[in-house]
Every structure is written in C-alpha cells, then in structure tokens.
C-alpha cells in the first residue's frame, strides 16, 4: 500500500504515579486518516504531545519516513512536518487571522514584516483545502468553527504533512464537522496524513481509514475503518460491553419549576447578548438548549445560576422570583449548577476531592459545627460515599482534583451538584471532552435525576447529546430562542439549520 509517513515505536511515558503511555506503537500512512480513541486518561494527548515535542518520552523512538529522529520541542516538530490542532485553540484573539497564521514563520526583511507574500500563500492554501476565512478579520470576532480553520491554515502554512487533531469536533455544529471532514479528504488527497482524536464514535467511523484503540496507556488494537463498529470500539475502549443508547425513563412532567420571562441582557459593551428569552422547565423534564457556542447560552446559565445582573425580565423558581437573590440563596432554594468550564468554575484544582465534593455545602451541618469549624471526618466520610456512588476513579478522597483525568473531574462536579438534591439542575456542557464510559454514566445520572422529579436545563454544543436526552429543545441563535421543539417532532438536520440562523427570518 502507500508509504509510511510516521512511526512511533514502543513509546513509554510515566508521570508521577501514572503510566500514561506504555510501549505504544503507532503508525500513520500517506493519505490516511488514522483515528486514536480511548477513554479519558488513556494517554492519547500525551502520545501526541510527545510527537509534538512538548513532552519527552522515557523510552521509544519516532521515525519519519523511515528516518529516526528526536523531537525536543515544537519548533523541531514543525520542522519535521508535524502540525497540531490542540484541544484548546492556540490563537491570539486580538490579532488578525493573517498575523495568527504567520507568527513564528514570518516573511521579513531586516526584521520588518512583509504581509503580502504570506497573504498570497495563505490564499492559495485556503482555496486548495476549502478553508475560506477573511484574512484581515480579528480572530476574536469570528466564530469557533472558523477559528479552527485558522488553526488548520496555521499548520498547513508551515508545510505540515502530518496533522494531528485533538478532539477538533467538540466545539463544532454537525454542519461544521462535515465541512471539516471535507477538508480532511482534500488534505489526504494531497498525500498528507491525519491523526484524529475524538470521543464521538460516529465521526470516527465516518472518517477514519484505520482506528487505534488505547486503554490505560496501552494499544488494545488497530482496526480497519471498514471492519469497525461503534459497539466494537466502545467495548475495546472500556474493556467491557457498553450500552450506547441512554434509556429514557418515562416520566410525565410535573409542575413548572423554572420559569424564565422576557430576559434581556447586555454585555459590558452594551451589546445585547440575551434578547427576550422566555421558557419554562417542568419537574421531571429535561429542557435542552441547542446552539452554536457564543449565542447567549453561557450568559443564560450565568443569569440563572450566578445572579448576573440582567437588564429586564424575571426568573422564577417554583413560582418565586429569584431575580434579586444572591448565589447562596439560590443554591439553598434548590438550584444546582454544572458549569461549562470545569477548571475555572467547577473545581478548586489544587484542593482535595473531599473538599471539592462539599463546596457550596461546606458551611452547612454536618460539615461544620456550631462555631463554623470544619469537621474533616464528616467531609471525608461524605466524599468516600459519593466517590463510590458516582464511581469516581481516584486513589483516595484526599487526592487533589488536578490529578484526575478530565472525565473523572467532571464526575466530581456532577456528583457534588446532584448530591445537593436540587429542584433545578443547570447542566452546561456536562460531557464535554468526556469519554463514552463517563458520558454514559453522566447521562444515566441525569436520567436518574429526572426520575426523581428534578427539572434539568441542559445546555450543550453536542447536538447528539441534546437530541438524545431532552424532552423539549430550544434553539438559541444570537441571544434568542428562535425555535422550540418537542423532541419527537424534529431532526438533527433541522436543528442544525436553525443553529446556523438559516431559518431565522421565517424562511421555513
């Protein structure tokens, strides 16, 4: 068959207490998409960071086109033709697209920047790969899907032949993901090789020529894309059969728990971010908000959860207005919140799990005594119980949160928020970057909560998730809920169109 671009042989990498990569061998052929899948913490990102020179392996070797090389830093990786689109974008928001692409690889004379030559080269790359972007727009002004194109252009500009994508579709709409895959095909047709990491198995099956499954730092198997199936991959990843469909309990919705009325909100620049938003969520119901990120979902959740000041409108919890209540009062009244950014708002990373699991309840009995002195035993006891109920994989309850894999960190938050037994749960991106095992678990927990009669507001950029969990779905676009559906009466494609605002003005 075709020629081998890259070979990683018996790569081993150990972090304190974790064997992240255990003799992993991996290769990439010219013109193929090779998917790398595995649970959270399986070692995918670590392997790619080794390839990109961000970590050095403890042992093993890397060969490019048959030649053994050592990669000590990203610069050397770039020189070897390796490019990486990171899990978190590596862009400079106030800079233009063009500037972002050329940084580190500028065209210059006597140190003075020349933008014309690069512009020409970039235009050419855009056309050949179907990555059209306004070069002179500022990155902060363009949507996420387009920012990703900038990332791709950035690595193509450096002449990369081996392209690594670490969970690139986590932030895209289904249509944008399709566009990305088209670009993948254009790039592989030019003989480039693509390494694709994703937790979304449908996508993996759609695009990958080969699939390598890793579990706990070891390669389990490399499959041909054609011979693979979702359940087979899932089973290889987890080590036991996985139920891929959530079982939706049949719960008839009860009284209205959350009612949002005519909410208006402006940001600090006086730009409207929420515009006359009204909806309600009943007990035992999951109301899903679909939408491309940045259309007001974050602000909506913030207004309900965090007492962010609003322009106009009202928020009622169980019939009582909470609009003027502070965060603690809202929590006491039964609002729980799984925030979208788990690192910044969900956890105190250097603190122990025990402490993280009692956050927000830490001032209440039995965790403190009459004099507000913390009772460590009670906190740890509670933590041990929750850790076992929610199956959080951790050495102990005293481990700091930062030592856990992403999926387990997320479980900690879900566990904490549900153990508060809320009336209303705000779940923002509850399974972002979380593997199928943990996703399944979190979904089941949400279903349990629904069965218990809790109202759930689910916000997710993952349309599949919204579709499979929600009873009703509201599509947000430019700060408005432009359409509301009962789940049965719509399709993924239809929602996708609304998400892009294409049916905004009554074109139906």
């Amino acid at each position, binding site marked *: 068959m075709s020629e081998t671009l890259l070979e990683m042989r018996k790569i081993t990498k150990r972090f304190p207490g974790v064997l992240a990569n255990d003799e992993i061998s991996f290769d990439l052929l010219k013109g193929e998409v090779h998917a790398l899948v595995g649970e959270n913490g399986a070692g995918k990102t670590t392997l790619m960071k080794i390839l990109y020179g*961000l970590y050095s392996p403890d042992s093993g070797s890397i060969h490019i086109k048959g030649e053994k090389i050592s990669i000590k830093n*990203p610069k050397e990786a*770039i020189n070897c033709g390796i490019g990486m689109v990171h899990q978190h974008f590596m862009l400079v928001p106030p800079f233009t697209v063009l500037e972002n692409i050329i940084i580190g*690889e500028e065209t210059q004379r006597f140190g003075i920047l020349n933008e014309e030559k690069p512009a020409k080269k970039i235009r050419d790359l855009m056309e050949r790969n179907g990555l059209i972007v306004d070069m002179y727009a500022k990155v902060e002004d363009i949507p996420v899907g387009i920012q990703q194109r900038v990332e791709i252009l950035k690595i193509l500009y450096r002449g990369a032949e081996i392209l690594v994508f670490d969970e690139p579709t986590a932030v895209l709409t289904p249509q944008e993901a399709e566009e990305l895959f088209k670009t993948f095909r254009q790039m592989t047709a030019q003989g480039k090789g693509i390494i694709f990491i994703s937790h979304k198995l449908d996508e993996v099956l759609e695009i990958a020529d080969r699939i390598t499954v890793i579990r706990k730092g070891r390669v389990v198997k490399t499959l041909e894309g054609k011979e693979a199936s979702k359940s087979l991959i899932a089973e290889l990843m987890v080590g036991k059969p996985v139920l891929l469909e959530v079982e939706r309990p049949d719960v008839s919705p009860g009284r209205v728990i959350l009612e949002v009325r005519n909410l208006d909100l402006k940001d600090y620049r006086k730009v409207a971010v929420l515009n006359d938003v009204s909806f309600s969520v009943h007990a035992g119901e999951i109301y899903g908000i679909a939408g491309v990120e940045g259309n007001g979902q974050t602000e909506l959740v913030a207004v309900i959860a965090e007492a962010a000041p609003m322009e106009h409108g009202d928020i009622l919890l169980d019939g009582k207005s909470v609009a003027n209540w502070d965060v603690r009062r809202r929590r006491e009244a039964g609002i729980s919140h799984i925030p979208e950014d788990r690192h910044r708002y969900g956890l105190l990373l250097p603190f122990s799990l025990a402490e993280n699991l009692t956050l927000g309840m830490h001032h209440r009995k039995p965790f403190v005594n009459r004099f507000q002195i913390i009772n460590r035993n009670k906190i740890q006891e509670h933590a041990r119980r929750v850790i076992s109920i929610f199956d959080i994989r951790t050495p102990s309850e005293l481990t700091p949160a930062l030592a856990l894999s992403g999926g387990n960190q997320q479980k900690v938050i879900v566990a904490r928020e549900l153990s508060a037994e809320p009336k209303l749960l705000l779940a923002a991106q509850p399974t972002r970057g979380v593997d199928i095992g943990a996703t399944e678990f979190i979904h089941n927990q949400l279903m349990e909560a629904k069965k218990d009669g809790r109202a759930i507001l689910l916000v997710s950029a993952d349309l599949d998730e919204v579709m499979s969990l929600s009873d009703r779905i509201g599509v947000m676009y430019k700060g408005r809920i432009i359409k509301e559906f009962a789940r049965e009466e719509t399709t993924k494609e239809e929602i996708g169109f609304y998400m892009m605002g294409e049916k905004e003005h009554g074109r139906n």
Partner: protein
Amino acid sequence: MNLSFILFFFVKGLEISAPIAFAALGAVFSERSGVINIALEGIMIVTSFTIVWAAIALHSIWLGLLFAIVAGSLIALIHAVVSVTFRVDQIVSGVAINIFAVGLSRFLSQKVFGQETQTPTNAYLFPRFLGINSMAFLLIPIALIGWFVLYRTVFGLRLRTVGENPEAADTLGLNVYGLRYAGVIISGALCGLSAATLFPSQWISGMTAGRGYIALAAMIFGRWDPVGAVLASLLFGYADTFRIMFETKIPIPGQFVQMFPYVLAVVVLAGMVGKARAPAADGKPYEKGED
C-alpha cells in the same frame, strides 16, 4: 501672554513630560510581553543616580547616559529573572525592587560622595535647544520607532504574542522567556532616557517623586500603545507644567495644586474602566511545558 511665552509653555511641557513618557514607553514593551513592571519607579531612581555619578566621574554626560541605560537594563534584568524565570509575583518583585532602589542609591551616594540624600551638582549637561534639555526632543522619534517596532517588525509581533498567549507562542516555537526578558530590559533601558530628561544636573533622594507610577498610569490610559502612552504622558506632563507656571497665581494652597497631576491620573484611569484591555497574559507568570 505673548507668543514666546506660549512657545515656552509648549517646549517646557515637553521637557517635563519626557521622563514620564520614556518610562511609559518602556512600560508598554514590558507589559505587551506579559510582565507588569511596577519597578519603573525604582529603576528610574537608579538611572537618575547613575547618570549623575557617571557624568561626574567620566566627565561626559554621554557616557553618563550610556551607564544609566546599562544600569536601568540591569535592574530590569533582576525583575525579569525574579518574575519570569522564577515566576515570583510580578507586583511583589516590582515593589521589592523599588524599595531596594531607594536604599541602593542612598548607599552609593554615601559611599561615592559622602552624602546620603544628594550628590554634588554635575556640570556636564546635554546641549540645550529652544531653552530646554535637547534630549526631550528625542521623545518624538523614539515613540514612533517604538510604534514601528511593536507593530511592523517580527520582534514586535512575537513580543505581543507572548503577552497575549504564551502557550500558543510556545507551541509555535517562540522563545517565551527570551521575549519577556527583552520586553522588560527594553523598559529598563528606556528609563535611562527618563533619567537623561529628568534632572541630570544633580541627584536628590526622592526626586523621581512617583513618576514611575504616573508612567504606568499613562501607559494604561494610552491603552498599552506606544503612541497612546506618549500622548497620555504629555497630558500629565502639561498638566504639571501648567501647575508649575501658574501655581503662584492661583489662590489655592500649594499642596492641593501639586496634587493636580495625580488627581488627574486617578480621574482619567477611573474613566477608563471597561474600555482599555490589558494584554491577556499580562501579569501572569508562564511555566513552560504545561497544559
């Protein structure tokens, strides 16, 4: 008020603004690379001492200037080592340097001249032009060069990248620490020019009188932009010139009139809230090879 008086007001204002403006320009480079440089005040103290000392010792104000630039760069280097390499909080490092600078300059003055709070006068001065220290006129070309370097050169683009997103810079193979060192050292070197325009005739303890801090305010008001920072410095400088020239003619206690530039700084900055945006990674130490 005749024409020559107005002309005098304008050039005098430039002279009074220059020390603040050079430091503000320096601050732009430091902060655009991601390092808050509150040590400007201390660096200015050291450079103003050095320029006098070296000029007297070497009988040349030009050598004095050279030494002041070197001294400024060295003190800035300390700030860079402490806050970039060792990732100590940048404010803490800056405050420590400011305290250290006061002691160092007094100690050296005592050692060299036998007087702790002031040096003898220095007779080697820069040529004068239009009745003021000619070095003040350097401000205009240097501000323009600063603007050009920051926005039109490879170095400037990279410097700004490091101040906005050091992780991205790292993955692109830029030398994050090296660029931050460069930004901080440029700010120290420019404090040499602050000293050249402040009062090269003599060093007196306390003579910088908070100009380093005013320079920081000017930089913020100037939106982290070289030209903006210089214009803001001119605003403060002219306000001060106005005060000096009319102080005696206004029936307000002198102390209040002297507060004028500082009050102006506070008012102007308060009005800036929400408008200016600091470089995203400004003030944040960066650790290599982390996620």
